[in-house]
């Protein structure tokens, strides 16, 4: 009932663990697989080891989740030893990568490709190095990164992960598709700040962080809706998906894959099974056999 095809990869259901929520170790992939996810995205890796920011790096209140972990990671070289390969785990694994400079995206993509992930996802939301703007905020830079990753990934499909912090997400998605992207992941967190009035300071040590969780959902649905109108490649809709109804809403906006991250915090590692159960219940009630029946229907007049 929930079987989904994403870039020719068969998923038992559309739910996918989003990058940066667990996904640091091989064992966490199996753990999330056992809890019902259709696929797992690893924590983003770059060309070097990074400790990330000091704490506080995350907290939550009122359905708002903030984080500024600062992209900690063991680095792709260490990960190659740690994971050895990604095609023999219990479910499809998406390898998330990034670099500081454009060339590094290619370098890391090549190494990631050697581990044989089902998909390579490119986090272009990292701080820029080569140019004045972050890669996600300029269609030409997005295209450059997409091209170099495609060039280094062989036959492995590539998904470009977009940020909502842009004037027009449609032109960015279009640029990625034109440069050869096989899918779009949308969205990453939106930027925010919370100040503790008793401390008189922003709570995050990094001061500014990314908002995720229920607060992000309307923004994510809007982005996926706009991207669906612009590109033909599949979209992994991510941002605030917590319940089955959110996943259905995201599918109606046009998503094929359903990214779930912060909801683990609210509903536990079992959130994948719970969300799938809720989607199926809704489908049965509405006499539906396949999610294709509702994909993108919000666009019909």
């Amino acid at each position: 009932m929930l079987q989904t095809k994403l870039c020719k990869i068969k998923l038992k259901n559309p739910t996918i663990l989003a990058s940066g929520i667990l996904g640091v170790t091989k064992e966490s992939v199996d753990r999330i697989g056992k809890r019902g996810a259709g696929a797992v995205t690893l924590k983003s890796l770059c060309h070097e080891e990074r400790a990330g920011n000091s704490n506080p790096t995350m907290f939550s209140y009122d359905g708002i989740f903030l984080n500024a972990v600062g992209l900690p990671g063991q680095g792709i070289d260490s990960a190659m030893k740690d994971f050895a390969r990604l095609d023999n785990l219990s479910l499809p694994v998406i390898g998330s990568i990034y670099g500081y400079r454009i060339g590094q995206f290619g370098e890391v993509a090549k190494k990631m490709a050697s581990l044989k992930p089902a998909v390579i996802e490119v986090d272009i939301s990292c701080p820029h190095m080569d140019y004045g703007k972050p890669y996600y905020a300029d269609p030409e830079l997005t295209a450059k990164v997409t091209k170099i990753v495609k060039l280094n990934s062989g036959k492995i499909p590539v998904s470009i992960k977009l940020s909502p912090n842009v004037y027009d997400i449609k032109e960015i998605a279009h640029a990625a598709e034109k440069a050869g992207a096989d899918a779009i992941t949308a969205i990453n967190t939106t930027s925010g700040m919370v100040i503790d009035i008793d401390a008189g300071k922003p709570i995050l040590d990094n001061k500014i962080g990314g908002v995720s969780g229920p607060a992000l959902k309307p923004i994510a649905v809007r982005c996926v809706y706009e991207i669906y109108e612009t590109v033909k490649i599949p979209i992994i809709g991510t941002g605030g998906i917590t319940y089955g109804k959110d996943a259905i809403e995201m599918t109606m906006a046009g998503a094929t894959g359903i990214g779930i991250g912060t909801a683990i915090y609210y509903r536990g590692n079992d959130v994948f099974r719970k969300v799938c159960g809720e989607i199926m219940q809704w489908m049965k009630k509405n006499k539906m056999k396949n999610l294709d029946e509702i994909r993108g229907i919000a666009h019909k007049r």
Partner: protein
Amino acid sequence: MQQTETCRTDIPQMLEIADVVQEGKGQKSFFFRHSIASKPGQFIMAWLPSVDEKPMAISYHNKKEFAFTSQSIGIFTNALDKLKKGNKLGIRGPYGNSFSTKPNACVVAGGVGLSSVSIYGARSMEHLIYRKRFKNMMITTDDGSFGRKGFTTDALDEVLSRNKKIKIVYTCGPEIMMKKIFEICQKHKVELEASLERYMACGFGICGKCMINDKICCIDGPIFNSKQLNQMSDFGNFARLKSGRKVTIKEYHSTH
């Protein structure tokens, strides 16, 4: 149901330090007049603005107050050491699971973070803490400056051989010590619960660095029983750094 799930809140709350008690050399307890619904073995995250936010076990609590005890070993704990009554810390939690608190128990502790003790080891007398709070405890110091000279592990082996009534051992302290305690308990067929430490950033199971094999230390632990420990090849051997890179326990403790 949906309401309660997404209402979950984990944000530091600035609390005034009501009291500071010097426990041993470089070890201080910080008391807060604030109730916290905690069970033995749980921990909080303590935020010192502009410095850091780190996990600390709850070392004392009653209906009206709670405390944690910090040992100065680095930037954060040294900054805590300078705090006075009236200063504020951001507190969130409690987090983690708890000890089972069964009768006929023996508690083995080393260092700080202990909530109840019966065999307690420290480097030397000036590092001993809570000596007044707990009666009926066997103390070992590595250098023999107080109590029995030697390690808690030797003392435990002896106690378990002599006293067959002991059904369970609770332990916290350096992992190398706990690994030995685990082996001794297996030998004597006595149940063990150990409190493990890993690098923790969130405390609520999201950041993924504190994984010990397939367990997430901050939410599935920090307390693990014999059966779980027996299946953890990482226990006593490997931990992950802040970056997520896996290293030996020895390197883990010498790296930060």
